């Protein structure tokens, strides 16, 4: 089993710090964290499927914890 230097919780913390600055309130969102070939994917999606809007989407480097890419949906 490979031990990653960046855990899912760490990747989520990095994403959340950025997301809170942009979105102010993350309560309407459900977050999904998944390890892919290019890093941790952290995706925020609205909990209510009837609601209009969008959330942030991140790729976090699994060795450095840097944000590789981010996309702000609205």
């Amino acid at each position, binding site marked *: 089993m490979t031990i990653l230097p960046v855990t899912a919780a760490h990747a989520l913390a990095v994403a959340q710090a950025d997301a809170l600055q942009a*979105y102010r309130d993350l309560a*309407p969102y459900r977050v999904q964290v998944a390890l892919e070939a290019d890093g941790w994917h952290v995706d925020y*999606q609205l909990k209510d499927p009837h609601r*209009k*809007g969008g*959330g942030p989407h991140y790729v976090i480097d699994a060795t450095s914890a840097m944000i590789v890419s*981010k996309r*702000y*949906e*609205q």
Partner: protein
Amino acid sequence: MEFTLLQPNNQRCANGLRWGILNVQAPTTAELLNHPLVQQALEDAWADSLADDAARRHQEGGWVYADLGSGAITTRRASAGATANIGLDHPPTVPGAVVVATFHTHPNPSAEGWDPGPSTDDMQSAFILGVPCLIRADDGVHATGPDSRRGGLAGGPGFPP
């Protein structure tokens, strides 16, 4: 035979019947985006979104209705939304009319990395609710979801069943 909804009120068809009685097809996204009342509603919502105010910018939106008798288009506004979301799932009932679209704004600037176009949630909710989703953003107007109200004008007030 097919009749479009966006005709002058009380106009009669070639067979002498009022066009609205026969019409079962809801207005399309393109027809709605060309309608002056819809364009005005989008611009009013955009102005109220305070897009130039980084601290107070927020989403605004509402619903577009078609009157079942005359075909007249009207709009209603929803309560103000949040930075990047708004609830449009409880349209007020307008007697004799059905919801044919929702509209809302994307006030967060493209220059700061925000995507001006429809989000994944916008698209999914539009197909769930069954009407086109019209969006005013800083780069213009976008649309997603079905091209017209699901099932035409049938199904009673509010969103289609």
